[in-house]
């Protein structure tokens, strides 16, 4: 029998309410050293990636969020008890550091879609385009126009990222920002926000959204700190891949 591992946490000695996990299995707290791991029994080799399972995983991790900030395991983490205990004892310092880093925080997400219609204006081909040029020169002139456009988009995306970071300065403990200048979904950010700063963070983000009506925002949270867990698990089976 394998264990499905949901998250690691400190400061919890028992689960006060019964929690159902993947495949409606009862979740229990496995104590090891001074840490607790939320696990449930699982008797297959792989975990189907379904909406139901994903929601069950999220619900279990979230169930302890009002008591402590857990470090979530990656969805589909299957282990046996010995592997889990060995992992924790050999990585104890790193786990403690991570737990301290996310302590009393939640993850808030900001995604931004940029209005691409502003890009429709084409750069002039200038001196590289004239009727006497051959097809090869015309091709290079077109490439030059594309490169200039790419560079402009990259600069705009970097500016957007810097603006967001500067606007939230003092309200976040950490951030994970992904910028994709060439895509419509230009920025995806996860912010680690201390719970006591949750209200001011929300107010600031509302202000940010109002400041830039040209951008489309998707805000979500509070989430357990999925983007900041970063546990390098070395178990043999994740998603059934050895």
């Amino acid at each position, binding site marked *: 029998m394998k264990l499905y591992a949901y998250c690691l946490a400190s400061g919890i000695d028992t689960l006060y309410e019964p929690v159902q996990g993947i495949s409606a299995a009862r979740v229990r707290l496995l104590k090891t050293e001074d840490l607790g791991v939320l696990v449930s029994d699982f008797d297959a080799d792989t975990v189907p990636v379904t909406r139901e399972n994903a929601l069950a995983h999220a619900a279990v991790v979230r169930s302890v969020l009002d008591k402590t900030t857990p470090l979530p395991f990656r969805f589909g983490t299957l282990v046996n008890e010995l592997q889990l205990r060995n992992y924790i004892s050999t990585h104890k310092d790193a786990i403690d550091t991570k737990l301290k880093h996310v302590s009393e925080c939640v993850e808030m997400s900001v995604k931004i879609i940029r209005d691409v219609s502003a890009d429709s204006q084409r750069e002039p081909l200038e001196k590289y385009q004239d009727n006497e040029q051959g097809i090869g020169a015309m091709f290079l002139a077109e490439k030059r126009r594309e*490169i200039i456009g790419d560079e402009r988009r990259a600069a705009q995306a970097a500016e957007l990222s810097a603006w967001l970071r500067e606007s939230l300065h003092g309200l976040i403990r950490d951030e994970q920002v992904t910028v994709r200048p060439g895509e419509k979904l230009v920025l995806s950010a996860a912010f680690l926000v201390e719970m006591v700063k949750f209200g001011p963070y929300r107010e600031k983000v509302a202000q940010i959204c109002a400041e830039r009506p040209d951008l489309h925002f998707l805000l979500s949270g509070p989430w357990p700190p999925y983007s900041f867990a970063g546990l390098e698990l070395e178990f043999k089976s994740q998603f059934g891949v050895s």
Partner: protein
Amino acid sequence: MELSPKTPLPAEPAIETSHVEEFVEQLRCVTDTLPSRINIDAQSVEQGLAKLVLTLIEFIRRLLEKQAVRRMEGGDLSPEQIEELGLALMRLEAKLQELKTQFRLADEELNLDLGPIGRLI
């Protein structure tokens, strides 16, 4: 840890946007490009290898294009050299397009996620 009563932390996560459909479409594109599961069989190995090789060729092709444009802008190429270089790069692009069609790969599939560094292209 007890939360301060002043902390307005909601019991459930909320998702807020005025552009739901747009985000659903974009997030679906992102998840479509994520490797869902490693499934090793003869056909997928061939396809995966082609994807990797063509991604690297595409990356090099783009570098060559940039280099050619920089040289053109720098004025150190004669009109004949510009024409010749442009034609060579155009043929390379056409050939790569042909290979992508042969392996049924879309433009957006030719990329590598390098984790925290970002994407290759």
